[in-house]
């Protein structure tokens, strides 16, 4: 649920990075945070476990400029990927306006990707939402693993497993190297803004 403040002319929209454990959601946000420092007025908030895994979420807000005289504030969140934290994933999804699904390209993570996407759809359904009606971008992360000799899934396999029905725009990415991280963000922001503009009409 985007919040639109007519008095101060501010739109707040929520974009959530979703995906299986250790797929690189937090690394995505860390990279964006390091690259967009000028547009971020606060520190990145990370609620982590002692073992440095995301417990609740990572979060930071940033200013996107103006649409129709409204200041747009995007709030970026990640969810905890570990299976046991489903209740916190659900909480973070509340009121989501745009989604990035981060898939892990490593071959041995194939089932985890599929399970996480199914879990996303189940959690959205609890809020009466359908994944097809929410702006979505697919990100196939860790493409750099191939250079290190780790077996990675072919792009066609990832598309077939995850995006055959959804047909969302996708990026091959490497969050640790910063490859296609900002383009992923730009795409989801523009899709989310287009959806909000449509609703504002």
């Amino acid at each position, binding site marked *: *649920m985007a919040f*639109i403040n007519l*008095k101060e002319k501010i739109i707040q929209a929520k974009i959530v990075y979703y995906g299986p454990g250790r797929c690189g959601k937090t690394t995505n946000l860390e990279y964006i945070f390091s690259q967009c420092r000028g547009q971020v007025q606060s*520190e990145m908030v990370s609620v982590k476990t002692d073992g440095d895994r995301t417990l609740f979420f990572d979060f930071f*807000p940033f200013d996107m400029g103006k649409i129709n005289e409204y200041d747009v504030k995007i*709030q970026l969140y990640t969810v905890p990927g570990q299976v046991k934290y489903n209740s916190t994933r659900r*909480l973070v999804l509340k009121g989501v306006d745009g989604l990035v699904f981060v898939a892990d390209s490593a071959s041995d993570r194939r089932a985890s990707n599929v399970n996480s996407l199914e879990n996303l759809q189940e959690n959205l359904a609890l809020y009466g939402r359908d994944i097809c009606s929410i702006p979505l971008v697919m990100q196939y992360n860790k493409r750099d693993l191939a250079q290190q000799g780790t077996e990675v899934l072919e792009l066609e396999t990832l598309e077939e497993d995850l995006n055959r029905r959804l047909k969302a725009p996708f990026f091959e990415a490497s969050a640790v190297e910063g490859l296609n991280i900002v383009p992923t963000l730009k795409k989801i922001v523009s899709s989310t803004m287009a959806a909000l503009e449509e*609703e504002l009409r």
Partner: protein
Amino acid sequence: MNLMLGQKELDRIHHSLKKNLIDIGAQSSMLIDTAGNIIAVVNNGSDIRDVYSLAALAAANFGAMNSMAKIVGEDEFSLLFHKGRTENIHLSKVNRDFLLINIFTNQLSLGFLRMKVAEVIKDLLGILVAKKPAN
């Protein structure tokens, strides 16, 4: 589903927060939704720099608390209080969708704050319930 509040509703919310909470000594009073969006912030001149992070964490805190309530067999816990050495945070549920956050020092008594929070929640419900989400 988007929520749109106009100038009139926001002015009424600001007025209620200021009159009932800031004027009795609270440092800052914020109305947020349970997704972590800020609807209104009023303060006494003391600047809380990162209100967006505070709102996100408060919403998460409340969500976690509600899940805990269900585990112990309660429908909900409707308030949450964090006591610091000098600064304190009081969170109250307004209704299913909205939360009220107050930051205050030890100079304001918790009992008095809670009494005023109850009055504000009545005001807010009158404003927010009349304003259904746009779609």
